[in-house]
């Protein structure tokens, strides 16, 4: 009996082996019919007015915007609008639309009615769009004729904000009004019609989205592959594995894995411009006169403490290790040279004020009343989101630097929602947290992060309130620039937060399939311009 059973087992094993090996091994064929991009995932829905800006990646291939972005320089270029201008007081913006653009699936020509419709979606009651507060300040979207439309604003809309919102960086996606009238929201959920170089072919929640090449695109450019798929793979190790096995052709990988991906022969494509930045924000710095939540005994309130924490960090080493050298130093949070109000002197000031000096840090802490018998203690709340895995690494690394100067920072993992609730409700005075976010116009950034009206309460004071109040009122470019620069100076000198790095978007691709991909970075979804991917022939 024993031998009978053993042979039965053996038979089963052989059958299993046969099934397994009969599965075809994935091949590395080039050029491919369907190009597959593995993404860490996004909130999946076609209701673009409920989707945050970074997750607009899923709309990139098929829903276009009025203004485009040059893949190499990042400049604003014509897309669905060929020309635009504003009134002198920046209250009215006129867009001239491109003629003869056809919607997918036969929904007719793109006209100014579609622009009105797109805007109306963004200000719906259930809208959680990133730029809704901006779009809500539009009093009226008036179609002057079939190819001209005017945005009339309550308050002046500066070019940086208007173009940011109306471009590929923003969320005003041109969708077909004709389809909406005919099929309602169900049609948009099922098979939305856009004007892009790809058309939406379908999606399986949690799995993938499929796009088909649009052979009648207004640009006339020929995309080199027939189909594009976004495969959702939230685990970093999985994305790398998929790339190595040839199951996908492009994927974004955390910096942790870059060295090994390169070692295994994968090719790296980075965005033309830096697009995301990371700073660490300290809670409790609510210096506006009369703020009842302010606690003078909170750990970060003393400027010497903030300075000490900043200069205890060896940013060069952090850059080389956690970021694998693939980032640039941020001299002031929020600003890049092309931002409004940039001060070229910030670089040299940064080298003075924020230079790595652990001995001085210890001295400053002593002056602030801390020492070996009475160490400075606070919490570091870190989080990780799919696709943004650097948070804990930064937290851990900074905790080590702080420890070296006698500071006890306790790293705690929370989820993002909890951290947001805490800083929104001003419950954050005892902890610091990493803020990893994409570029936005300087005035919007200041309003979000350093002003009491915003929801992110870490550093606020009377000077910033007053100065920003004037920025909001001014439409003179030079005056605004000066005011914003003064704000930046103040933030840098007061050590309002811990600026760290700017980095580009980087993806890895199978070198046997993909030969080149030029994309700017500032597009809403970071990875963009899929139509420009060049395949190996």
């Amino acid at each position, binding site marked *: 009996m024993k031998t009978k059973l053993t042979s039965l087992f053996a038979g089963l094993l052989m059958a299993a082996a046969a099934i397994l090996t009969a599965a075809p091994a994935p091949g590395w064929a080039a050029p491919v019919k369907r190009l597959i991009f593995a993404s860490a995932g996004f909130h999946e829905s076609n209701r673009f007015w409920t989707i945050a800006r970074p997750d607009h990646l899923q709309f990139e291939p098929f829903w276009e915007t009025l203004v485009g972005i040059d893949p190499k320089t990042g400049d604003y270029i014509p897309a669905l609008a060929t020309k635009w201008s504003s009134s002198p007081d920046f209250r009215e913006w006129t867009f001239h639309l491109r003629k003869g653009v056809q919607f997918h699936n036969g929904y007719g020509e793109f006209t100014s009615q579609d622009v009105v419709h797109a805007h109306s979606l963004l200000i719906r009651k259930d809208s959680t769009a990133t730029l809704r507060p901006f779009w809500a300040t539009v009093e009226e979207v008036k179609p002057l004729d079939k190819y001209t439309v005017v945005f009339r604003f309550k308050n002046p809309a500066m070019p940086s904000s208007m173009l940011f919102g109306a471009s590929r960086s923003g969320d005003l996606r041109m969708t077909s009004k004709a389809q909406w009238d005919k099929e309602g929201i169900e049609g948009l959920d099922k098979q939305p019609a856009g004007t892009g170089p790809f058309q939406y072919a379908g999606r399986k929640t949690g799995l993938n989205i499929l796009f088909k090449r649009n052979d009648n695109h207004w640009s006339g450019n020929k995309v080199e592959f027939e189909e594009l798929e976004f495969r959702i793979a939230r*685990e*970093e*190790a999985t994305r*790398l*594995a998929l790339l*190595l096995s040839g199951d996908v052709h492009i994927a974004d990988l*955390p910096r*942790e*894995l870059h*060295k*090994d991906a390169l070692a295994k022969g994968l090719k790296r494509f980075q965005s033309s411009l830096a697009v995301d930045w990371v700073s660490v924000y300290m809670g409790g710095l609510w210096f506006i006169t009369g703020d009842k939540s302010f606690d003078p005994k909170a750990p970060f309130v003393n400027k010497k403490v903030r300075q000490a924490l900043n200069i205890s960090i060896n940013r060069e*080493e*952090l850059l080389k*290790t*956690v970021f694998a050298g693939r980032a640039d130093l941020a001299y002031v949070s929020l600003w890049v040279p092309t931002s409004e109000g940039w001060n070229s002197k910030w670089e040299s000031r940064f080298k003075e004020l924020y230079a790595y000096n652990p001995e001085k840090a210890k001295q400053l802490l002593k002056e602030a009343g801390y020492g070996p018998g009475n160490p400075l203690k606070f919490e570091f709340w*870190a989080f*990780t989101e799919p696709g943004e*895995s650097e948070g*804990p*690494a930064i*937290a*851990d*690394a900074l905790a*080590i630097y702080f*420890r070296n100067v006698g500071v006890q920072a*306790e*790293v*705690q*993992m*929370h*989820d993002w*929602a*909890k951290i947001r609730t805490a800083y929104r409700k001003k419950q954050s005075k005892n902890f610091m947290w990493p803020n990893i976010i994409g570029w936005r116009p300087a005035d919007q950034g200041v309003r979000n992060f350093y002003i009491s009206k915003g929801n992110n309460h870490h550093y606020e004071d009377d000077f910033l309130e007053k100065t920003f109040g004037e920025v909001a009122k001014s439409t003179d470019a030079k005056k605004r620039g000066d005011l914003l620069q003064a704000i930046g100076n103040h933030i840098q000198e007061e050590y309002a937060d811990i600026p760290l790095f700017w980095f580009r978007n980087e993806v890895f691709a199978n070198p046997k399939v993909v030969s080149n991909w030029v994309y700017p970075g500032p597009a809403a979804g970071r990875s963009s311009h899929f139509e420009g991917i060049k395949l190996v022939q």
Partner: protein
Amino acid sequence: MPLQSSTRTLPWYAVPWIVDGWQKVKRYPLIPLAILLFMLVIPAIFAPLVAPHDAFQGSLSHRLMPPFWQEGGSTEHILGTDKLGRDMLSRIIYGARVSLTVSLIAIFVGGIIGTALGLISGYFGGWTDAVIMRLVDISLSLPTILLALVLVAAVGPSFGTVITVLIVLLWARYARLVRGETLAIKELDFIARARVAGASHTRIMGKYIFPNVVNSLIVLATLQVGYVILLESALSFLGAGLPRAEPAWGVMVSDGRELIVTAWWVSMFPGLAIMLTVLSLNLMGDWLRDHLDPKLRNL
């Protein structure tokens, strides 16, 4: 030296009780005990003495060094280092302390609560029994991991949260076991005699019933330590367990997950530690069960 030979050849220090002792020791499961000792007990108690490096502080320039037998490794860090340059071996040793503390506290508290409720439930019967047993049912039907996830999302990861979750999940098994045994024991004669003699309920439960239940409790507890360690590491893996500051084994496996292709040792060794510890605990539990109370074969 064969101890079974005649007493004439025994050395002068081989007094009878040593001989007996040695023969008893041979019957014990030595290998799992040894593993447990080295993987769990000694590291947990003597961590600061045994660990070669600081488990919390690492040097960023030494990050992701492979184990010493691979190229790039060194005997300075035998099992390699993690993302932040922390020595793997030291972290695993401290991790034993974390795992052991969490599971012991959870089992102890859960066991006390469960035993007490089980005794009350089995002894008094009636409505008390019905209510407690329904609580047990509900507790056993709670999807453990899901509730932990939601709880941690609500309250934040901390020692307290994890232990609370574990206690809520563990007590029911003890309650059920003790109740079953109590039901059987309370019908016995000597209990009736005690009642007649005027012993109070508490006295009967504590002095007469409880000692007979202890054996099963020990077996269950030993088997549960392994289960608790697995559960805690699964929760830590999902991010719903211990705070990151602690070098918990589950947290370490989770940290190394994205590096599995490139720095396999960051996940492998903590996982191996979990496996060996739980394995030897299960072996111990099995042995205990076979020797203390074979009735529990189906536990």
